[in-house]
């Protein structure tokens, strides 16, 4: 009989944990911490289409390097449109203080340290904000698992993300984000964004996910502003990971380099 209990107990414990659903926080931890790259290089193509069909295109070469879970350096060189060609942007994320942001403006031939108006500012006049393109900080939001749904036949968790403080709400510009997270690989497939007055105003759709060197990337996504009826499409190409980018690249000295290869 004792033997029977020894066999049954682990099975019961395992079944209990297996049946117990993950919390919203646990799911989002997996979303944020699943990445296994140390550095990344990519070409970013951004197309903005306004309600009248007018199209504007941006092209960026980006480099990223992780120093710890909360410390990343990101360097971007703007290639298109032609009037911003040569502009470059360095963001140094810190664990315990605000990001340092440096912008090189070829028109001024100067590197300027720039202020952050919060992360809700528009990225290159698109519908993506700096918060949307950056790595989310887990502590900024609290997470509720509000359901499970199939999205285009794919089982997803539905997570409600609420800012932990009025300051985070002000910084991000969001009073709520609802995210659809794939159950099998913890990739976000869709997000609904709610403005500070509580109205849904933006919808993110991830159109393509690619596996590059064993790392999953959302390589094509569109952000639709449902109030202005404007769409921004972001596409990553030529993604390379863990190529051993040097620390010296992520410095102010690199910002006015003529050609980055």
């Amino acid at each position, binding site marked *: 009989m004792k033997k029977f209990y020894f066999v049954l107990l682990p099975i019961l414990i395992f079944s209990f944990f297996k049946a117990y659903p993950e919390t919203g926080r646990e799911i989002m931890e997996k979303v944020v911490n699943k990445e296994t790259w140390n550095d990344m290089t990519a070409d970013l193509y951004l197309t903005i289409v306004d309600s009248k069909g007018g199209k504007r295109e941006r092209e960026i070469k980006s480099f990223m390097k992780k120093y710890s879970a909360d410390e990343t350096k990101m360097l971007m060189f703007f290639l298109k449109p032609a009037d911003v060609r040569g502009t470059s942007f360095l963001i140094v994320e*810190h664990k315990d203080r*605000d990001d340092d942001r440096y912008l090189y403006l070829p028109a001024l*031939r100067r590197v300027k340290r720039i*202020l952050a*108006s919060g992360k809700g500012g528009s990225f290159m006049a698109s519908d993506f904000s700096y918060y949307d393109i950056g790595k989310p900080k887990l502590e900024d939001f609290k997470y509720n698992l509000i359901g499970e749904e199939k999205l285009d036949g794919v089982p997803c968790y539905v997570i409600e993300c609420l800012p932990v403080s009025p300051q985070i709400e002000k910084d991000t510009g969001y009073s709520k984000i609802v995210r659809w997270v794939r159950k099998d690989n913890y990739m976000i497939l869709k997000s609904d964004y709610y403005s500070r007055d509580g109205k849904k105003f933006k919808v993110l759709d991830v159109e393509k996910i690619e596996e590059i060197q064993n790392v999953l990337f959302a390589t094509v996504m569109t952000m639709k502003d449902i109030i202005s009826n404007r769409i921004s499409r972001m596409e990553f190409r030529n993604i390379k990971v863990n190529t051993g980018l040097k620390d010296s690249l992520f410095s102010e*000295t690199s910002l006015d380099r003529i*050609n980055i290869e």
Partner: protein
Amino acid sequence: MRKLKFIILLFLIFSLNLFSQPDISGYLKFLSYLNIYGENKYLFERNGTRLQLKLSASSGKASFFTSVNIDAYKGSKEGLGINPVEFYIDLNLDFLKLRVGRQFVFWGKNEWNSPTDVIIPWDYENISSEIEDYRIPQTMIQGTGEFKGVRIQGIFNPVFTPNVISFQSTPFLQFEKEELPEKKISNSEFGGKIAFNKKGWDISLSFWDGFEKFPSIYFSFDPLQRILKGTPKYHRLRMLGFDMEKTWGSYGLKGEFSYNRTEDKDGKNIFIKNPHLKYLFGFDWLPTEKLNLQIQYLREELLKLNIETENQEWMKLQIPPKIPEKVTDYGVIITRWNPSDFVSFQLVNVRNLKSKDWLGLLLGSYEVQDALKLIGGLVLFEGKKGTTFGNLKDSSRFFLELKYSF
């Protein structure tokens, strides 16, 4: 100038052979600059077209860049001209970046009134929307290395160039031809800077051994012509500088300080500017993502100024004394406003708080479509004759540009 153009041509031919896949970019713009004050002979300061061509390429760790303006103007600045802007070669090693050629190097944290911005001269007669019009690039060697987060920069400029300012003679004062330092190695300029980040503060310490960009005017009385003569001459200047900057979310603070040791070490030469201190405090605020406000206070303080001795020296020359102010205070306000993604405005006001003369720049820009911009602006110099900005009143103008970048 012909020699310079020839060197650039050789440089381009050499570079194109050395480097592969050159990248060509630039802009074409149509512009109209309207003089504001009626004393000007011309209604339009310039009216015309500029084609700027930029050529860059790289090969391994080396790269080159060159930009040339082809200007065709009518008005007081008339004619067709090919004006080189920059041309340099970069060598990017892991720990050192070397840049050799005609280039810009700006020190300090501020665009308009930086106490440590002593390398690149200004063209005060040509303030416009393009920095290459009102700052004059220099042919220099620049080396920058980075070691454990500390950036060390060294600069060597073999030939000094002064600021461009107008010397307007009057019936009582006649300006003679300016006397520039002889072109020899001992008259070169050089300096260095160490920059690092400490607890979020960007800090730098700098040193420059060069020449004053503004001239010392040597006055003499010509008894035969019964006229006062002024000869602009340039003297050596050594600058020790310090600047720091930090941001907290949408707020920023910056401070800059420089000690400038002129050739008038003991303050007894009435023509050469006394040794002086310059310090600046600035506050930056981004109340919304569409609006940026900057307020700066700059003070210049002359050291070793003895008014009694100065008076006596002027009396000996039988010339009415021209005693400088011991302290000069400037206030600077910069506002940038982006009411929409494709419209932006900028307002800059630099004001001498005592003599009340000021410079105002209002700039508006509308992005008609990708790479096509309509730019309108107003540059205004106001103040009494004899004051810094008052003397530049005739350079005030309104301008309109249509610029296509490619």
